[in-house]
């Protein structure tokens, strides 16, 4: 092989990787040789610690390959990716040029190719891929690997029955085109010079090439030159050419027509590729658009299944491992699995990460096509497709699009799973912190009343004789009051955890606010004696739709709060009015007010204005906020200009509040 140092000067791009790391490239062909080739490359790469690529150049010929061979390519690329290589597919015409361009771009130092087959005219002309590579490789080493032991029947043998028929039709079309042109030629022959007649043939070749594949197109160019020479070039009706000038004409015509047919075929191929890519890009774009606006895994699967079903006009479903790792259909079309075969294929696909099912070479005896949904690390699920013509989906471009969509969905699922895991972890941490705060906060608040209760009760027991009746009464009263306090605290804690867990369903009915406030006042009755109450509720307030028990809790907590932070004897005011289609309730006190800047903080869980000094777990206002917001209202705190705190909350006024019904009155 060439001396790398020497060529490096002449051709800088071919300089080996500066990092000193070797990059290897294995070129794949649609034959079983690809597999041993990949393994050989992988072994060498592993030994050298090199990075390696597996490259398949997709030429126009790829589309005409039988599905088995296309499948071989897909398998080979998949294997390469699995073994740690980077699998790449590129489109192009000249395999050797594409390989070399890729190799230079990726600073490849060694290229592995399969040993060419002995037969074929290109071999004798030195035109095989290997020869071409060796000629143009520059500093890159070319390693030819034989895969003879595993080389199976040549791909041609497997060609499906429909292919030759179509090919035959295309050749006949070429013949017909040239025949038509010849007819035209005869009618114009008297009026046109030979050169211009040749132009008509060239035109025919261009037209035919634009609608025929390269083989028949090339055939049409040869045929037209032959027919032209036979009918219109003297000697007429013979291939003998009368003079040198005509020979020149024919040679030029042949060269031009073959070039034209080749170029036209190329353009056609590029148009096809562009169209296919556009379709794929559009589908991929749509999918990524759809997958971004997703809230849950279920929705994601649903959207993905629907879009794949729409794009490919088939029944699509997504299977993912559920309980005991059994694959379950999670979105899309359900299907019948009479003998459990579908499930087995799905399981196989999930395990091996490889396409299988109807129409494929692997496990084809089922109704569905199964495609692995591959995330970054592993197979995450299986995409199931069912259609009457599985071959349609297994065409090269459909399959490629399916694979791309599959990996997009796989990655989206993975992302969603990771997101949920992160969320769960965050929630756990939050719950943990909550528990800790709760424990420290609550243990203090629980212990204080318990200490009073235990102390008073034991005093009563010990001093049965010595205590006078008034002291006994005081102690008993203390026990009773502290027990009530404990009860409210425990109730708040339970309520909080119920609200937190989202268990508290609102049991909304039409209520009179006055009654709710009255019932709250009745529950606080003994404590309220220290504070004169001023209640100012208009008599014509409309009914509100609320959960009365919860709303009562809001009023109780706000009143308790007011009593707790204001000196005895100061009044508490309760007022209500309608404002902007809301019922605005205010509970104001004449105490020290909320410390400025803490108006929002006090609604935070466990927040206490002066920790330790007052009783309560710091949950009351948090519960109020949760309840009010669950009703669609707002709650906030402010200080009155003349001093004292003012808590407001709103309840939305809804249409259709019951009014006094005449029927009910007159019954």
């Amino acid at each position: 092989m060439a001396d790398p140092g020497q060529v490096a000067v002449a051709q800088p791009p071919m300089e080996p990787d500066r990092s000193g790391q070797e990059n290897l490239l294995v070129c794949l062909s649609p034959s079983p040789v690809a597999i041993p080739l990949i393994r050989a490359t992988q072994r060498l790469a592993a030994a050298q610690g090199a990075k390696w690529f597996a490259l398949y150049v997709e030429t126009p010929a790829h589309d005409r390959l039988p599905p088995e061979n296309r499948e071989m390519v897909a398998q080979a690329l998949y294997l390469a990716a699995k073994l740690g290589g980077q699998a790449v597919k590129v489109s192009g015409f000249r395999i050797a040029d594409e390989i070399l361009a890729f190799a230079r771009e990726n600073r490849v130092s060694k290229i592995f190719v399969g040993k060419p087959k002995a037969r074929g005219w290109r071999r004798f002309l030195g035109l095989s891929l290997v020869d071409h590579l060796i000629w143009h490789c520059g500093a890159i080493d070319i390693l030819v690997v034989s895969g003879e032991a595993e080389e199976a029947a040549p791909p041609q043998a497997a060609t499906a029955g429909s292919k030759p028929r179509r090919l035959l039709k295309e050749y006949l079309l070429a013949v017909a085109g040239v025949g038509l042109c010849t007819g035209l030629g005869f009618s114009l022959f008297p009026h046109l010079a030979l050169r211009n007649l040749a132009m008509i043939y060239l035109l025919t070749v261009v037209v035919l090439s634009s609608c025929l594949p390269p083989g028949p197109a090339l055939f049409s160019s040869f045929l037209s030159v032959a027919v032209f020479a036979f009918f219109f070039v003297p000697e007429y009706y013979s291939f003998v050419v009368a003079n040198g000038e005509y020979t020149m004409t024919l040679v030029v015509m042949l060269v031009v027509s073959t070039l034209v047919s080749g170029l036209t075929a190329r353009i056609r191929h590029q148009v096809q590729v562009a169209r296919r890519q556009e379709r794929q890009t559009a589908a991929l774009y749509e999918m990524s658009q759809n997958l971004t606006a997703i809230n849950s895994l279920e929705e994601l699967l649903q959207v993905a299944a629907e879009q794949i079903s729409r794009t490919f006009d088939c029944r699509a479903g997504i299977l993912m491992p559920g309980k005991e790792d059994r694959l379950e259909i999670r979105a899309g079309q359900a299907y019948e699995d009479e003998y459990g075969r579908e499930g087995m294929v799905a399981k196989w696909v999930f395990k091996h990460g490889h396409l299988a099912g109807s129409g494929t070479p692997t496990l084809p005896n089922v109704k569905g096509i199964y495609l692995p949904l591959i995330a970054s690390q592993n197979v995450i699920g299986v995409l199931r497709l069912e259609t009457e013509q599985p071959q349609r989906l297994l065409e090269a471009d459909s399959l490629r699009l399916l694979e791309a969509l599959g990996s997009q969905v796989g990655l989206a699922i993975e992302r969603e799973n990771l997101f949920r895991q992160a969320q769960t972890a965050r929630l756990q941490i939050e719950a943990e912190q909550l528990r800790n705060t709760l424990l420290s906060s609550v243990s203090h608040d629980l212990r204080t009343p318990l200490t009073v209760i235990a102390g008073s009760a034991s005093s009563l027991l010990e001093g049965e004789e010595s205590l006078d009746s008034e002291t006994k009464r005081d102690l008993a009263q203390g026990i009773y009051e502290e027990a009530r306090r404990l009860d409210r605290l425990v109730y708040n804690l339970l309520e909080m955890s119920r609200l937190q867990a989202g268990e508290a369903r609102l049991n909304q009915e039409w209520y009179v606010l006055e009654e709710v406030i009255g019932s709250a006042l009745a529950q606080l009755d003994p404590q309220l004696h220290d504070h004169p109450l001023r209640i100012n509720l208009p008599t014509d307030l409309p009914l509100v739709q609320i959960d009365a028990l919860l709303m009562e809790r809001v009023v109780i907590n706000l009143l308790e709060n007011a009593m707790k932070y204001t000196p005895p004897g100061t009044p508490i005011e309760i007022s209500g009015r309608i404002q902007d289609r809301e019922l605005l309730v205010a509970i104001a006190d004449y105490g020290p007010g909320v410390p400025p800047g803490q108006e929002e903080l006090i609604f935070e869980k466990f927040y206490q204005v002066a920790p330790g000094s007052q009783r309560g777990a710091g949950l009351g206002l948090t519960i109020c906020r949760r309840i009010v917001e669950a009703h669609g209202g707002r709650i906030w705190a402010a200080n009155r200009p003349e001093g004292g705190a003012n808590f407001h909350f709103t309840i939305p006024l809804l249409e259709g509040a019951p009014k006094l019904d005449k029927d009910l009155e007159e019954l």
Partner: protein
Amino acid sequence: MATNPIILLIEDDAHIRRFLRASLVTQGYELIEAAAGKEGLALAASRVPDVVLLDLGLPDMEGLEVIQQLRSWSNVPIIVLSARGQERDKVANLDAGADDYLTKPFGVGELLARMRVALRKAAPAEEGKPEESYSLGNLRVDFQRRLVFRGREEVHLTPIEYKLLSVLIKHRGKVVTHRQLLKEVWGPSYIEQNPYLRIFILNLRRKLEDDPTRPQYLLTEPGVGYRLRDE
């Protein structure tokens, strides 16, 4: 009374039984105790108590089931002891035939008041004898003339309001569920019309109470119903 009223307490917690025993026996009741539903039902059949106090969290049976079984053969007043936050259960129990309920924790005073009401209901002497009047605080109802007075002043009530008040007086001291009130005042097809009941109660309070927001007579039992204060 010639003999002490017999109270059957069905409650699985020994501490609660102990404190109730202490309070009730000193008040002159005879207490029999059961720690489970089946035992309670058997005692109810053999001892024929005057009042049953039934805890809702029994180990062997749902409280509702105990009530239903008891009611299948007995009219004994049942007072349910339940925890806060079980309003639906309370209503279900009351509708199944329980007479009243007490929310834990409760004071002995409350319990004794409920029991007095329950025992009065059980006393056969008052049955069948139409009352002529009823008074509570400064309220007075003259049933014969269908007049209601607040102090010396006559209060004008609509027919429905008067009916509502009479039903509450009939059950005075005892909780009456929304359903039961609607059924007795308006009729069985109105049992779902809670909002209307609330409007009528509101109006009644405005006519009868000194401070309708802090009612002294017509008490709200949150989530369950109403109770007319008795003493």
